[in-house]
């Protein structure tokens, strides 16, 4: 458990350091994630060293968002005034992103396959 925490928090800390040094507008977690993937690929870290904690954290991902969601009560005023654009735009845009991303992926994949076969 200590080894697993060392690795996960170690990569997070490196992410924090990179953000601190470069001023990149990215969260440290995303940088840590990319570095962890690269280190696993390079064989510096073995997947057995982290998978227990990683699977635990990923399984409970949704729960960690609860406090931010409770923050909804902080903006009750704005939401009461403009709930219609907020709700409709969020739903419409989320559906559009899913349809567009998925369709573009399927389309490009089919096309590149066809090119390869020709």
């Amino acid at each position: 458990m200590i080894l697993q925490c060392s690795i996960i928090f170690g990569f997070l800390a490196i992410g924090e350091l990179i953000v601190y040094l470069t001023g990149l507008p990215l969260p440290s977690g995303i940088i840590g994630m990319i570095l962890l993937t690269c280190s696993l690929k390079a064989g510096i870290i073995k997947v057995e060293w982290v998978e227990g904690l990683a699977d635990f954290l990923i399984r409970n991902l949704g729960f960690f968002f609860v406090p931010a969601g409770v923050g909804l009560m902080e903006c009750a005023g704005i939401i009461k005034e403009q709930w219609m654009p907020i709700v409709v735009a969020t739903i419409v845009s989320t559906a559009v992103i899913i349809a567009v991303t998925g369709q573009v992926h399927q389309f490009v994949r089919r096309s590149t396959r066809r090119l390869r076969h020709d």
Partner: protein
Amino acid sequence: MIEFLHNKIFLIALTFIVYLGSQWLQNRLRVVLLNPILLTIIVLIGYLVLFDIDYPTYRAGGEYIEFWLKPAVVALGVPLYRQLETIKKQLLPILMAELAGCVIGIVSVVVTAELLGATRDVVISLAPKAVTTPIAIEISQSLGGITPLTAAVVVCTGIFGNLAGFRIARLSRVHSPIASGLSVGTASHAVGTAAAMNRSHRWGAFSSLGLTLNGLLTALLAPSILELLGYTP
């Protein structure tokens, strides 16, 4: 005695217990709308309002839970690593899909909100709603949005993607596991990814890839896209 209801540890324990109860309820009733995240948020807001506790008081405890979000995002590197070979083979389709999803995602939310009469600061707060909280807040703040609104809308977008994401994918004829995983992660970040992980790790890995790439692209492109749409900071 009533003071105790504000206790930090008590509020943390309450969050766990309400979530546990919500999970149990969903397993019993299998009603999609009874999403444990959504239900817990509603019950907790009800509790705080009822006992007249303000959000900063709750947050003093809640931040210990929110804290785990950062290491959890790092942990997504593991499923990503497991799918690296497939990702390499499909690099071009994945990148094209992400670019389209990112740009159209921002444009669609801005234009829809504008047409329905949202004010400028609300439109900016909604623009980065598809990506994970830290990135979204960063963008919203730098462009003059309302950050608590952004944080809340990001969570709600995630819950919507978690509830309906795969149904929307099916309706829009997105069938391959890779394409649907990718698109749910792109549209609804880590909360959507939680739904993908429940299906299988393969879906989950592509969903994490979607949330990562869209996070990166949104951080890079959102300021320029908003500027083109007439929102200069």
